[in-house]
């Protein structure tokens, strides 16, 4: 089990990590979510030993690794831009970790064939690295990290450079692969859809610390803070006035930000409900999403069918519609 305690890392003059705690259990896929530049990559680089911690500890179970060099940690890291060795073919890239571990040639070849098969690149061994497509290069990088059988595998936005369709497919493949291997993993991304598709648990990172950690359901239904809610892709954050009211009515006891729970505000078919105007409409994920103006605020809700922009609609609000958030 990976244990990170009170980790602090300074790059230049800035504390990129500032007292970060994190645990990853064996066999667990933890997704680390956060906007670009929040220190996700630095965390991975520190866990793996490429960045020096100025405080705190990195340990595997009881073994303190804080000052161990990278090659003695037995962790794997898949880089965003693959970092394939340009002077070696695919098989030599994948065999690298086995070679430096001193595995004899026959053992290496068998293992290389095995992991290449695992990532769906059977027969790619003799290909030159610069003839690979983006998706293939990514899978070679993954195979290379998997080959030595690391006790923890980290993936740093591994699909960041690929197009959407390929990404969705690879995320699904990756989830199946990691679970099938029972491979303890940390997967870094800034894309919440990717995070939901993969995670056993999600950790949302900000200001050099973990802001919220839990299962997908726990974190989604109670993000606790506006920052985490935004990272997860919640769209309807509502500012309440001093008496806890807004254009939808009184939703709280005082001022603050609340999250409108998904599904609690719907189009009403009758003539009663709150008056509103459709100001925008888009289609994604098989559904229409309407941007609706209510008083001085705008809300996004899904709708089963298109509604012309400019038309008036009425909204019904369910019970217990909001969760309070801290800013």
């Amino acid at each position, binding site marked *: 089990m990976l244990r990170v305690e009170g980790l602090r890392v300074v790059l230049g003059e800035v504390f990129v990590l500032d007292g970060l705690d994190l645990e990853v259990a064996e066999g667990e896929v933890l997704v680390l979510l956060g906007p670009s530049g929040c220190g996700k990559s630095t965390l991975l680089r520190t866990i793996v030993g*490429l960045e020096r911690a100025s405080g705190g500890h990195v340990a595997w179970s009881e073994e303190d690794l804080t000052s161990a060099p990278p*090659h003695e940690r*037995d962790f794997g890291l898949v880089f965003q831009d693959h*970092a*394939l*060795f340009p002077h070696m073919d695919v098989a030599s890239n994948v065999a*690298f970790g086995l070679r430096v571990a001193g595995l004899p040639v026959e053992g290496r070849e068998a293992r290389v064939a095995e992991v290449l098969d695992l990532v769906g690149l059977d027969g790619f061994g003799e290909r030159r690295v610069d003839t690979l497509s983006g998706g293939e290069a990514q899978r070679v990088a993954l195979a290379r990290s998997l080959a030595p059988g690391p006790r923890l595998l980290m993936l740093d936005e591994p699909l960041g450079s690929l197009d959407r369709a390929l990404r969705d497919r690879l995320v699904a493949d990756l989830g199946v692969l990691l679970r099938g291997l029972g491979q303890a993993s940390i997967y870094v991304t800034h894309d919440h859809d990717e995070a939901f598709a993969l995670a056993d648990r999600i950790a949302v990172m900000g200001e050099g610390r973990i802001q919220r950690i839990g299962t997908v359901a726990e974190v989604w239904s109670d993000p606790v803070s506006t920052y985490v809610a935004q990272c997860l892709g919640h769209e309807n954050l509502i500012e309440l006035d001093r008496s806890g009211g807004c254009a939808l009515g009184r939703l709280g006891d005082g001022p603050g930000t609340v999250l409108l729970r998904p599904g609690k505000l719907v189009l009403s078919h009758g003539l009663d409900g709150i008056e509103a105007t459709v100001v925008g409409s888009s289609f994604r994920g098989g559904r229409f999403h309407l941007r609706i103006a209510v008083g001085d605020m705008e809300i996004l809700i899904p709708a089963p069918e298109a509604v012309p922009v400019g038309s008036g609609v009425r909204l019904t609000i369910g019970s217990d519609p909001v969760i309070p958030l801290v800013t």
Partner: protein
Amino acid sequence: MTGRLARFLCVGIPVAFLGLFFIYPVVSILGFGLTGGGLEHLVGLPGSATFRGVAWFTLWQAAVSTVLTVVVALPGAHLVARRRFAGRRLVRALATVPFVLPTVVVGGAFLAVFDRLGMSDGSFRLTHTVWAVLIAHVFFNLAVVLRTVGSYWEGLDPGPEEQARVLGASPAQTFVMVTLPRLRPAVAAAASIVFLFCLTSFGVVLLLGGPGIATIETEIWRHSVWRGDFGAATALALVQLVAVLAVVGVGNGLQRRRAVGLRTVVARAPVAGRWELAANLGLLGLVMGLPVAVLVERSFLSGGGYSLDNYRALAVRVDLLPLTALEALVNSFVFALAATAMAVTVGGLASLVVVHGQRALSRVFDLGLMLPLGASAVTIGFGMLIALDQPPLDLRSSRWLVPVAHALIGVPFVMRTLVPTLRSIDRRLREAAAVLGASPGVIRRRIDFPISARALVVGAGFAFAVSLGEFGATSFLPRQPDRLTAPLALFRLLGTPGQQLRGQAMALAVVLMVITGFSVLAIETRRGSAGADL
């Protein structure tokens, strides 16, 4: 109409310059060497034990010098490429200086060092041994490796190295298995240039090797200038020409495998450890700093005490020289200005053709104008000596032949800084300007020129420094008082025994070193990342 005229001049001026002052002399060597007396000597060469000895020595001293240079330079290259420390830029700039120091100055500096350490005779004698030549070659060429490999290394994505570490490779394993193979194109490029320089090294061998050591280069000089035996000299010059072409060919082949995944990553470079820094800078300081320091110390030493006497003596004529050292310096300065103007004109126009000309023309220019860098200075000087001596091209009587020879050597320096900068100008800038209504001429004036002006200044600085210190080619041109340059004067002062002359020589060497060193240093510290590597 003006466009066609401009294009004609762009192509015509470099072609005329190169053709008249380089191609024609080289062809003359060929003609002379393959007919009559030259041919006789050429046929006799393989059977001559003396020649075989000289050729073998030329090759192995170049090979050993190259290996030594690479080995000494790699730790330093790692330091400037992958570590951050205060004064990093200064170290880079200082490391470039030896490369442009006049060969005669370097020779003088090492003579002074050996003298100071008591190694000019006795059982630990270094003066006039092959060791002296090897050490001086390392000193000279360290900068080539440091810069070529250093900046390539700096641009390499550190991802694969980090990945290797994560996969369990130790730092040493990572260096051997990942870094070294990735550096191969740069190391090969640097090594082939260093090998070429050592193969054609002239002043250093003459001064430090002494009478007992001969390379093909010094033999050509001895035969032609001392004995007036042009037949033997041309035969040797032909051999040298073929050897140089072969090395250039192999070097180009090695360089064809170019950079993969270049990305600048300086900001991430870790701070250098104290011991790492001390060890590296100590080594560089010893190799590069010691000769310079001793040279300066010796220049102030006269008659048992320190004074400015040696510098004052520069204004006084000695019997050995037709002019005072100061007058020779003035000659050099005037020649250097003229040579720089010519090199910038020819090199600038040729660079435009290389970058914007038609494909075939561009390749011919790229290769053709680089040739003088490869061809030895001796080939250039000797070629001019035998080619330009009869009407209508009797230029030997003109003192301006000296800056012409210097400019020929300076052109590649101008092009090597200018071409990459012109190439790096984003095509979209030019397209945007064109869409906004700029004609090709306006684009050149408003886009290309302002962006590449700095590179042009850098190239000009190199051309100036090279001209100021040029010795090989100049030493072939007829000797007359009005064309005695400072390096020639220095060579004669150093070659003649006598305490007073030696002191004056040291002072003259320091003056030359300061002028060339600072003209490059000033440019280096200012140019940032612009420009190419030599």
